[in-house]
């Protein structure tokens, strides 16, 4: 365990310049990504380099967040009041739907929880900046896989590369649905995770002792992430829609938000507020 003072000094030393470069690299990369998306056939080399840069930015930010959170939060919070889903009805900041298959692991979501719990403490501006960056990254990285994917989607389907004609429909749709969610609030960033991870996390978070007298509800509630995911009609749609994913639309975004809200309503209804 590194002494608090030392860690802080390290961060401050990097602080401003690193953060501004991080932000500018992120901004430039996102701008390039959007521009390339508009092209019919973006260069594969360019796309790969840009998405690798974005990944690197993301991992650097996560490393920073982890080092900061390990300094400030020796123990992880037990409750997650901040996790009450609060879905904005408006459109998300990013309407990328193309290829949200960058999977985040549980460790990352825990880190983001820590960020959320920690925002009420000192260094609020830095942490919120990092949260914003992380949230941006979640949407961008997921969509950052777009360039290698979107133009090649049609190629794959048509040139007879039989192995790669279709992406696994369930996982792509799952993550596409969850991808739209992170918009305004930092806690929403957590929900940029693949949906099964989100749901499992939410299920674990619930203090199950509350439900013991209500066994029926709990049973009805103990569905797996996969089962809940089936509630979303989008998942049963044919994967051929993925080829046209390059034409993103607000309509699709809000529709997917509504689906998420629908699922969350189900979860909320099954246990009453105490």
């Amino acid at each position, binding site marked *: 365990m590194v002494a608090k003072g030392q860690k802080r000094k390290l961060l401050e030393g990097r602080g401003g310049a690193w953060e501004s*470069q*991080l932000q*500018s*690299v992120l901004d*430039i990369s996102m701008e*390039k990504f959007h521009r390339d998306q508009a092209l*019919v*056939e973006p*260069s*594969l*080399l*360019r796309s*790969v*380099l840009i*998405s*690798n*840069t974005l990944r*690197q*930015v993301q991992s*650097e930010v996560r490393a920073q967040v982890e080092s900061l959170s390990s300094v400030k939060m020796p123990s992880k919070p037990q409750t997650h009041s901040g996790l009450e889903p609060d879905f904005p009805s408006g459109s998300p900041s990013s309407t990328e739907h193309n*290829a949200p*298959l*960058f999977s985040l692991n549980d460790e990352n979501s825990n880190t983001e929880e820590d960020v959320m719990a920690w925002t009420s403490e000192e260094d609020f501006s830095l942490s919120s900046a990092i949260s914003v960056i992380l949230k941006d990254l979640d949407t961008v990285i997921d969509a950052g*896989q777009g360039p*290698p*994917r979107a*133009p*090649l989607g*049609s*190629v*794959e389907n*048509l*040139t007879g*590369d039989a*192995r*790669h004609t279709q*992406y696994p429909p369930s996982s792509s749709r799952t993550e596409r649905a969850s991808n739209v969610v992170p918009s305004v609030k930092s806690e929403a960033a957590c929900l940029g995770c693949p949906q099964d991870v989100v749901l499992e996390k939410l299920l674990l978070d619930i203090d199950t002792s509350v439900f013991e007298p209500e066994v029926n509800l709990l049973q009805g509630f103990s569905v797996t992430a996969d089962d809940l995911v089936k509630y979303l009609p989008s998942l049963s749609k044919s994967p051929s829609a993925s080829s046209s994913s390059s034409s993103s639309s607000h309509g699709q975004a809000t529709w997917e938000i509504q689906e998420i809200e629908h699922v969350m309503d189900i979860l909320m209804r099954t246990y009453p507020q105490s």
Partner: protein
Amino acid sequence: MKCFSRYLPYIFRPPSSLLSSSCHTEADIISTVEFNPTGELLATGDKGGRVVVFQREQESKNHPHRRGEYNVYSTFQSHEPEFDYLKSLEIEEKINKIRWLPQQNAAYFLLSTNDKTVKLWKISERDKRPEGYNLKDEDGRIRDPTTITALRVPVLRPMDLMVEATPRRIFSNAHTYHINSISVNSDYETYMSTDDLRINLWNLEITNRSFNIVDIKPANMEELTEVITAAEFHPNQCNTFVYSSSKGSIRLCDMRTSALCDNHSKLFEEPEDPSNRSFFSEIISSISDVKFSHSGRYLMTRDYLTVKVWDVNMESKPLETYQVHDYLRSKLCSLYENDCIFDKFECVWNGTDSVLMTGSYNNFFRMFDRNTKRDVTLEASRENSKPRAILKPRKVCVGGKRRKDEISVDSLDFSKKILHTAWHPYENIIAVAATNNLYIFQDKVN
């Protein structure tokens, strides 16, 4: 090395261009330059799909000072823009690479490629034509058979030299991604074409079939993090080739080991210098060109800021590293923003493998002498080079006081980039492509 200081500039422009050099069409931008194996011919390809071939003047007693001047020999349209209806994509006609075949008869052969299709062109001379046909007259009109009273044998009469280019083979439909390299094998029977993810081996005679020898496409395209950027056959060993990647590694493969060369025989990779690590480390490590030395003992690679020479027998680190324009290291963020960081510079060996040459910005190009470790920066520009003048070495001022002839980093013109250069196989003659202008410099030997 005396050749650094004494060069005579000749300036050529595509003959079909009627515009002055200050304004030019996009189609005139030279996209590749290549000498043929004897150095007699020099081919350039441009963004408009045209190939212009220059031929060296023969030595003549009447005009001794014109020795070595290159004049236009042939111009032809190699590739046309195409539209892929299936994918709704336009296929650019820009010539990405030209490679000459060794000469085996009176005709010359070269391979030229755009993003999708490789073509074998035959360039041949015609200086005689048959005259005295029986059934048609000199203009080609059919003669009235009733007027024919006698038979004659057509004879060949001399005519003005005509150089014609004909496409002999068209190798198409083998690449899903964009072709970035072609390389002729030393067996002179096969060649390979490389795109972002695959390398295909062709027989020069057979156009409807090619063999895939390298495939780095992941099963799941979302896992793609590395692409192939260049590839070349060994100059002597017909079973050996190398390919470079966007992550800065070079793989040497032996085609005898297996049909699919996905597993390399050697991997050349330099561990990253942690002190130089930045967000752009990976992008600037991407190799834009790889070339075997003429001897086959060394490899040269070009990444954004350096040229490296590798010993084929040592994979752990390069033998030599040369800084091309290290003053750009602190400007990487702006260069990322204006896309210059993605520029793909080529590099070339001289005939004896002792000097390396590569391009930079502001129409500068650099030469490195491997023996003396001296380097020089020269400029390919109309204003600074009068015919037969000696090229003056240039210098970029990094900071502090700028001397009179120096240019500061912030004054560099990043739109004037020298991506393509070529060195004569035996002599000290170099060809430098600066946007739409081709400069040919030669060492003045007294």
